[in-house]
């Protein structure tokens, strides 16, 4: 057994130990376990947001893109930098308030409450599940690749072990103090990444020297236009690369759901700042390390292992163990968040809504479990024999989710006229256009990224659909009022308005009505 594996085992035993200890010790009244989700402060909110959304892609996909495309890959990083702050500033506070007024538990239920129509769930739930599956797949592959490298077993075996551990984690994660585990992991992730980056820069003789050495291999890598200058002037592609992880990121159900769990509305504000700092420290790292891997390891068989191989080459042995453990843990917590969210969508938004309206809690758990196992098995079947590139999978699924949901999420809180017809048209148009654009090969033919066409189509559909159906499907009165409240419009003293308890909205309205 290698040193790294030993570290991996120690790491997880320690995490589990802390969790069990915290559970036995902490008193668990009804308040405690129920409000657990609604009590997250800015630090935990920000770091969870980041750690539950980017690990597998960052450690595998980003390094591979840096290795193959040089500075062109930075377009993705540059968009990604602002993803967290954009998400929190545009949606955070308003979404938290509106979901509270409407009483929504899941992110898709929230959409259905805001745009009352059963079609919302019928369309949103499968689209979300479909895309989340691909994102989970990327985590599986990343976990498998990491384990393959540290243990030396073949990829299919490593993949099976990685998936097995991830599934086990979704079952037993409740024994860990998950929110804080995520928080700790995010910190270890950023420390590990900075550590690898610094060691890499030292190994190549500094940033400038490193760039010069990359330039000697292929000067095109230093431009923003790709290894063969193929993207020169292709602004449609570049715009897509910038938008995917900034705008597209707002379409993630498992990311926006965390807006609903913030302790206070102002958490969004501080969390935005933390996420920007985290991103500035963390995001450029993997791309740069991938690029400098060209100097240190010019003949990698698989560019996806660039970060792992560089870490192995530049870090002292004990550090490799720690950093690898952190990377695997991060991948695991991302996969865990995704799988659990997928289970919730399958049980609450599909099974309970359309198949068995009288679902009890034991059935709910079973539907979630079966969903998780099914995703794991299908994921293995696809990844073991012909693993797709992690970067491509993540970019594709983010593109589809972003195109499908971003206008619906944004207009839900910012546009009073957005109605169910608009939202349904927007989700259908966004999904179809982005998927068809991609599979038909249109990006190469036209030089325009599916993120661009997808989001344009869904935005246009939202606007046209809503405006055309204002008469036939007006936005219900109570939603209009909830939106006024969210936006703080009304003839109420400003100082008092912002302290209101949104949970009381409907009671207040009814109490004041019949008198």
């Amino acid at each position, binding site marked *: 057994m290698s040193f790294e594996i030993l570290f991996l085992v120690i790491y997880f035993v320690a995490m589990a130990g802390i969790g069990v200890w915290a559970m036995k010790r902490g008193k668990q009244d009804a308040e405690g376990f129920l409000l657990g989700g609604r009590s997250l402060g800015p630090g935990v909110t920000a770091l969870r947001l980041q750690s539950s959304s980017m690990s597998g892609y960052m450690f595998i996909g980003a390094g591979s893109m840096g290795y193959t495309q040089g*500075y062109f890959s930075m377009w993705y990083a540059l968009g990604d930098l602002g993803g967290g702050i954009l998400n929190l500033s545009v949606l955070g506070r308003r979404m938290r308030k509106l979901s509270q007024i409407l009483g929504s538990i899941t992110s898709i239920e929230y959409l259905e409450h805001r745009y009352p129509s059963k079609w919302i769930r019928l369309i949103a739930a499968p689209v979300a599940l479909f895309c989340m599956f691909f994102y989970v797949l990327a985590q599986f592959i990343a976990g498998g690749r990491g384990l393959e490298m540290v243990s030396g077993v073949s990829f299919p075996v490593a993949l099976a072990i990685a998936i097995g551990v991830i599934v086990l984690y979704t079952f037993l994660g409740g024994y860990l103090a998950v929110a804080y585990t995520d928080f700790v992991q995010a910190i270890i992730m950023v420390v590990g990444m900075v550590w690898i980056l610094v060691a890499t820069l030292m190994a190549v003789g500094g940033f400038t020297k490193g*760039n010069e050495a990359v330039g000697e291999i292929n000067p095109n890598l230093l431009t923003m236009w790709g290894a063969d200058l193929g993207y020169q002037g292709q602004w449609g592609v570049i715009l897509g690369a910038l938008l995917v992880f900034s705008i597209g990121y707002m379409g993630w159900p498992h990311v926006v759901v965390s807006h609903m769990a913030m302790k206070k509305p102002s958490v969004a504000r501080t969390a935005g700042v933390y996420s920007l700092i985290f991103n500035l420290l963390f995001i450029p790292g993997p791309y740069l390390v991938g690029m400098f891997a060209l100097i240190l390891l010019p003949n990698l068989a698989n560019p996806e292992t660039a970060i792992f191989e560089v870490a192995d080459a530049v870090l002292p042995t004990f550090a490799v163990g720690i950093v690898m453990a952190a990377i695997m843990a991060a991948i695991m917590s991302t996969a865990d968040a995704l799988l659990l969210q997928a289970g919730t969508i399958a049980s609450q938004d599909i099974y309970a809504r359309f198949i068995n309206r009288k679902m009890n809690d034991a059935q709910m758990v079973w539907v979630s479990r079966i969903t998780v196992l099914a995703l794991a098995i299908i994921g293995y079947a696809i990844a073991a024999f012909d693993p797709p590139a992690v970067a491509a999978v993540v970019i594709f699924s983010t593109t589809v989710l972003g195109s499908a949901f971003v206008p619906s999420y944004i207009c839900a809180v910012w546009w009073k006229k957005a109605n169910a017809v608009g939202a349904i048209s927007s989700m259908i148009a966004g999904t179809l256009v982005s998927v068809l654009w991609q599979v038909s090969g249109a990006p190469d033919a036209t030089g325009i990224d599916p993120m661009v066409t997808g989001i344009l189509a869904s935005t246009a559909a939202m606007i046209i659909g809503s405006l055309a159906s204002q008469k036939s499907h007006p936005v219900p009165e109570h939603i209009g009022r909830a939106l006024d409240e969210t936006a703080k419009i009304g003839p109420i003293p400003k100082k008092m308005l912002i*302290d209101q308890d949104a949970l009381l909205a409907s009671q207040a309205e009814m109490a004041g009505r019949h008198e």
Partner: protein
Amino acid sequence: MFGLPAFTTMVIIGVPALWVIYTGVFLWLSRGWKHEDAEEQR
């Protein structure tokens, strides 16, 4: 600078700078949000 073409340098410094400015503007515009918290500590 950094052994990079001028355009690359401009982009990799300029775009993050834009995000930092965006964050600053957001912080300024949202400075009143903390008043909203008072009544929610229950």
